[in-house]
């Protein structure tokens, strides 16, 4: 990890450092290291007042998992419990085979009775080897960037010089070696975020927790820092749990997404799976999509068909999906037409191939469903038009270019026709 420039003394110190770190982890840690890194396996059960968190989570070695959810979903509670900063009474947390919380179920014989393996025991935060990058970064204001990064190794008893070398390596990794001597107050938001990442990595964590790592930054900085963070995560290959409410973070950084709502998991999958086929209206809202709850859904040929409230039916050329009964309607699937069917407001080129929404049961072909505009909202360079069908009161969102002549004149209360692209709707 470090360059050999430290000389015999430095190098020797560093080797013993690694060993000491593992020894410090107790017997469980040693056997875990012998088995190699197998990441995080957690069963979190935390009750705080009326709120209960129930989250089963696995993060493979080198894998990045995003924990996505709205405010109050329990994301911070999950992070705090994993980091050992919040009590995690009924939970079981295992990192690299080392039990950090609770009792090992059944198979504890092979590792032998380690110190941490007593039922219900909880390893304190400082002995967990779980690195956290806090949303507000929490750099030590009186220490330079280099001293901040060296803090982890130093606090584990690494010699000052070796710790500085380690810190330099990590600062180089995040591209900030030139700012090593600056104090946090002299760093920009993005720079301090990178120092926070370097600091967490310098402590050689077995699991990395990223708490909204980009939320505190200016919007214009975010894409570059997100890409830089993705590179770093790719390079270090540490099991990482990323907590975020921004789907863009999840897509750019994560291998898998776990969606948490109200303390419970509502969806799991790759970022693409989750965002293109949202199971709940929260997930749908992240991309502007909507989710309808069908009264009945079934396979129809190679596709699927669903019966909706208000006597509407919708079909999809995609096969019937697994999971909770739903009709996922991404914005790309939505086209709006003028009442007479003349003007076309949607994103598609023409009416051909449309007609996923079959209209009143028994209707044939692409019959636009009568709907009313309930909101017109500017989203960056697009107009988001929310409509509600007159039958069934189903809402859908269409995105129109700002320049879309007639579309730009749509107002709340206008009547329109709603068409769906059957190739983009998912039915389950």
């Amino acid at each position, binding site marked *: 990890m470090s360059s050999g420039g430290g000389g015999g003394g430095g190098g020797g110190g560093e080797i013993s450092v690694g060993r000491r770190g593992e020894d*410090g982890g107790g017997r469980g840690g040693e056997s875990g290291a012998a088995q190699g890194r197998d990441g995080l396996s957690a069963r979190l059960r935390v009750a705080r007042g009326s709120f209960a968190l129930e989250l089963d989570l696995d993060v493979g070695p080198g894998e990045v998992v995003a924990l996505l959810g709205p405010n109050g979903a329990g994301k911070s509670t999950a992070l705090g419990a994993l980091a050992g900063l919040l009590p995690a009474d009924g939970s079981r947390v295992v990192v690299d085979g080392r039990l950090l919380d609770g009792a090992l179920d059944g198979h504890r014989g092979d590792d032998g009775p380690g110190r941490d393996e007593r039922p219900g025991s909880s390893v304190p*935060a*400082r002995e967990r080897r779980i690195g956290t990058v806090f949303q507000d*970064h*929490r750099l030590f204001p009186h220490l330079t960037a280099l001293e901040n990064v060296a803090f*982890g190794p130093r*606090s*584990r008893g690494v010699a000052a010089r070796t710790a500085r070398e380690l810190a330099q390596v990590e600062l180089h990794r995040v591209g900030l070696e030139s700012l090593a001597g600056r104090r946090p107050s002299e760093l920009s938001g993005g720079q*301090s975020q990178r120092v926070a990442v370097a600091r967490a990595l310098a402590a050689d964590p077995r699991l990395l927790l990223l708490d909204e790592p980009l939320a505190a930054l200016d919007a214009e900085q975010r894409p570059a820092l997100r890409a830089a963070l993705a590179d770093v995560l790719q390079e270090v290959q540490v099991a990482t749990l990323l907590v975020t409410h921004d789907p863009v973070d999840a897509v750019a950084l994560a291998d898998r997404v776990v969606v948490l709502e109200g303390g419970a998991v509502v969806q799991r999958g790759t970022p693409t799976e989750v965002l293109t086929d949202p199971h709940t209206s929260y997930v749908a809202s992240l991309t502007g999509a909507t989710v309808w709850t069908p009264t009945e859904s079934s396979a129809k040929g190679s596709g699927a068909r669903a019966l909706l409230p208000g006597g509407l039916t919708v079909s999809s050329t995609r096969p019937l999906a697994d999971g909770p009964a739903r009709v996922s309607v991404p914005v790309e699937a939505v086209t709006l037409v003028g009442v007479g069917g003349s003007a076309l407001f949607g994103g598609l080129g023409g009416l051909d191939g449309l007609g996923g929404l079959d209209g009143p049961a028994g209707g044939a072909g692409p019959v636009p469903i009568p709907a009313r505009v309930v909101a017109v909202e500017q989203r960056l360079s697009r107009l988001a038009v929310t409509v509600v069908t007159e039958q069934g009161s189903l809402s859908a969102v269409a995105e129109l270019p700002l320049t879309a002549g007639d579309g730009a004149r749509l107002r709340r209360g206008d009547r329109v026709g709603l068409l769906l692209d059957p190739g983009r709707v998912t039915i389950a």
Partner: protein
Amino acid sequence: MGLLPDLRDRRSRGDRRLPRDQRRRRPPDRGALRDRRLPVAVLVPALVGLALLVLPAVALLVRAPWSTLGPRLVSETVLDALRVSVTSALLATAISLLLGVPLAWLLTVSDGWPAVWRRLLRAVVTVPLVLPPVVGGIALLYLLGRNGLLGRPLDAALGVTIPFTLAAVVIAQTFVAMPFLVLSVEGALRGVDRGLDDAAASLGASRWYAFRRVTVPLVAPGVTAGAVLCFARALGEFGATITFAGTFPGRTQTLPTSVYLAQQNDPESAVAISLLLLAVGVGVLLLLRDRWLTTGAR
């Protein structure tokens, strides 16, 4: 909150500064000018108050026996009093640090206690600030005097008598001055982001290491300011000292008590010593201002 909001604040403040400067270059607006003028009802009492604070010091400077100042200040009485004052004030500050920092910490953790206990603790710490020092001195006599609550057993068992010794001076000064340090340190401790402790723990730091490397450096400016305030207060302590420790030249006579005695038979010496104390006071202020400036600049 972390340092990010600070950064952003500073940046946005910088952004706002530009238009304001430009505004100033515009022809002065009459309304704005009139707004800036202070109402007489505020200005007059403010100036009278200022005069009340400044004029006594001016009088002292005017009436000072400048020609004989040197000899008066190096007289045996003054030098003895200076020695006792500095020794006792330093000791009182050291004891205040030793006992006051943990007490300040106790105050910060008392937040989690029942309100009754929390308020009681705070009241007890604050009482010496509002209590006339003479009363403090008498209270100390009843505690540690030859017939006092603790003084009698102490005398009987160990033959130790505290009143009218240097120890009594130190105790009296500590009693009066320690609250200044406690409140200053408490403020500093409260100013330290608890989140930094979590950050230190997540990096593998033991509590002791985090305290040493994070908490102590961050509260150091507050502790220093508190210690300087405490020292200044101890140096000027009069009421409790004269009641509990008397004024034995060379043993318990401090500069303030010697001023009081000199005023009765050698007023010019009293003025000279007063000037010395005034100089010390101003010096302390300068020291504090410097300290505050450096911490503010960080």
